[in-house]
């Protein structure tokens, strides 16, 4: 099996954009091709991670549209939809295409256009992933977060303030990310006094609705240095995907994300590393509670101890394990299909030393992209080339 390298990356400005999904994808795709020093017609495979362009704006067939716009025909194209983890699933598909030998040069572009919809409409599009017996009760992804946060705080005697500190940390990190939707710090009082959305969680416990796109270019590690200097590519040393139950209330422990544990086990084994070998991580903080759950189920902290790590500053940018140096979904924004790609973009910047003011000391980084409420997960480990 070929070892797979990432040789180029890009992301657009995240936030409220005038551009529609085709334009967003083309913007990120063209920038990533430029970053890798290649043209569209060099690509063998072109993947698009996108959850719901048909539902959001009535535009389907986006991979073919993108191939045409970037002069990438006759590249093989496919759309990867795995709800909020479409980006991570796209990374898996792109990695697979190179590792298997099916492609010598693959680009993945993730993107979503959402902000033209009302919050209620966008929430309903996302909630359409739920089982009929859940959907008819009006359940939303934020309400799953409220249900889980209440149970977590009760079971582990965690203070409500610890969730707020996730938001404070990630907003602080987002200040130094020029692509982030919010480049503004918030204080704990602001978080704790913000309007209730899904009790006990409040507005600042949730990521925003976002437009944006991100892209990555993959090739065999054996030829990566032909495209970019040796210290400017990263290796996908481990990747794993897994699922948990579709119906959330059927999980044995609602505060455990089995897909996170299972996918990271696969990724760690492939990379030949343990959780404490990870220097920096991007976690799927669509809701603040998810940063606790993932940091525990990835093996960074014991069950029920993730909140203490935030309280003690362990996950700050200058802590022992920086989490969400990009600002996370919380501050950077969450354009569904783009988010998993943008997570790997951040880790790529970190392990190649290109993260600018967000730079931490990192040779090994991890991205965990979650779909649904832990229904589908991809965990990716990147290592510096040297």
């Amino acid at each position, binding site marked *: 099996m070929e070892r797979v390298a990432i040789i180029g990356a890009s992301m657009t400005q995240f936030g409220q954009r005038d551009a529609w999904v085709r334009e967003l994808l083309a913007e990120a795709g063209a920038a990533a091709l430029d970053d890798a020093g290649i043209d569209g017609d060099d690509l063998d495979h072109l993947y698009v991670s996108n959850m719901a362009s048909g*539902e959001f704006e009535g535009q389907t067939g986006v991979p073919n549209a993108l191939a045409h716009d970037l002069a990438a025909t006759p590249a093989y194209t496919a759309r990867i939809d795995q709800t909020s983890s479409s980006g991570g699933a796209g990374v898996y598909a792109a990695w697979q295409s190179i590792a298997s030998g099916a492609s010598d040069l693959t680009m993945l572009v993730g993107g979503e256009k959402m902000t033209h919809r009302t*919050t*209620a*409409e966008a*929430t*309903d*599009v996302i*909630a*359409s992933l739920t*089982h*009929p*017996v*859940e*959907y*008819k*009760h*009006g*359940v*939303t992804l*934020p*309400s799953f977060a*409220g*249900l*889980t*946060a*209440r*149970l977590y705080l*009760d079971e582990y005697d965690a203070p409500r303030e610890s969730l707020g500190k996730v938001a404070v940390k990630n907003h602080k990190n987002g200040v130094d990310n020029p692509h982030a939707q919010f480049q503004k710090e918030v204080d704990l009082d602001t978080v704790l006094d913000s*309007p*209730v*959305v*899904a*009790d*006990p*969680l409040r507005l600042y416990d949730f990521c925003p609705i976002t437009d944006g796109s991100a892209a990555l270019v993959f090739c065999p590690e054996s030829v990566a240095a032909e495209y970019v200097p040796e210290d400017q590519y990263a290796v996908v040393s481990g990747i794993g995907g897994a699922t948990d139950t579709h*119906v*959330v*209330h*059927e999980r*044995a422990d*609602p505060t455990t994300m089995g897909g996170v544990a299972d996918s990271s086990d696969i990724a760690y084994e492939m990379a030949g590393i343990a959780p404490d070998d990870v220097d920096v991580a991007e976690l799927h903080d669509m809701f603040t509670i998810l940063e606790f759950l993932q940091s525990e189920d990835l093996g960074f902290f014991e069950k029920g101890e993730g909140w203490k790590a935030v309280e003690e500053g362990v996950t700050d940018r200058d802590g022992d394990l920086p989490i969400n140096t990009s600002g996370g979904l919380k501050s950077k924004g969450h354009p569904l299909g783009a988010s998993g790609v943008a997570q790997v973009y951040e880790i790529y910047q970190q392990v190649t030393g290109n993260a600018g003011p967000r730079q931490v000391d990192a040779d090994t980084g991890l991205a965990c992209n979650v779909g649904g409420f832990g229904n589908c997960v991809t965990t990716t480990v990147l290592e510096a080339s040297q």
Partner: protein
Amino acid sequence: MSDHETTDTATDDSGDSTRPTFEAAEYADGTVTYPAHTVSPNGAERVDTVDLSDRAARVVTWTTSTATPPGVREPNTLAIVEFEMGDDYDGPPVRALGQVASREDAHGDAVADGDVDVAIGDRVEPVYADDLREPGAGIREPESQEWDGFRFRPLA
């Protein structure tokens, strides 16, 4: 009954065939799940149904959602509950997620309510509602699923 249906009707002692049931699935390995799946978590085939409508349950956790989708009551208090299955049942917990009805709902009719009093550990009972949300107001095709079902009302 299809996989995505929640309620059906049953005939009681008086011959009333209109009483809605809260159907879970029972499998050959003794497991009960709500909703029904093609096979049990261990792969055993479905053999029967279990009506949960007369069973009490305990609140595992709850939330009140204030940002609700089109056609959903606002605010919308939801709970995950775990049913009391009796000493003879030794399978995994049987749970459901559903809207919470107010304690003041004295007539047994589930009503849209904004002031729900519930806590972790509370005992609740299922109460039937014709429409839990407005069919067709959201993105899902109205004919693709049932819209009636059971809310959970805290017991005194």
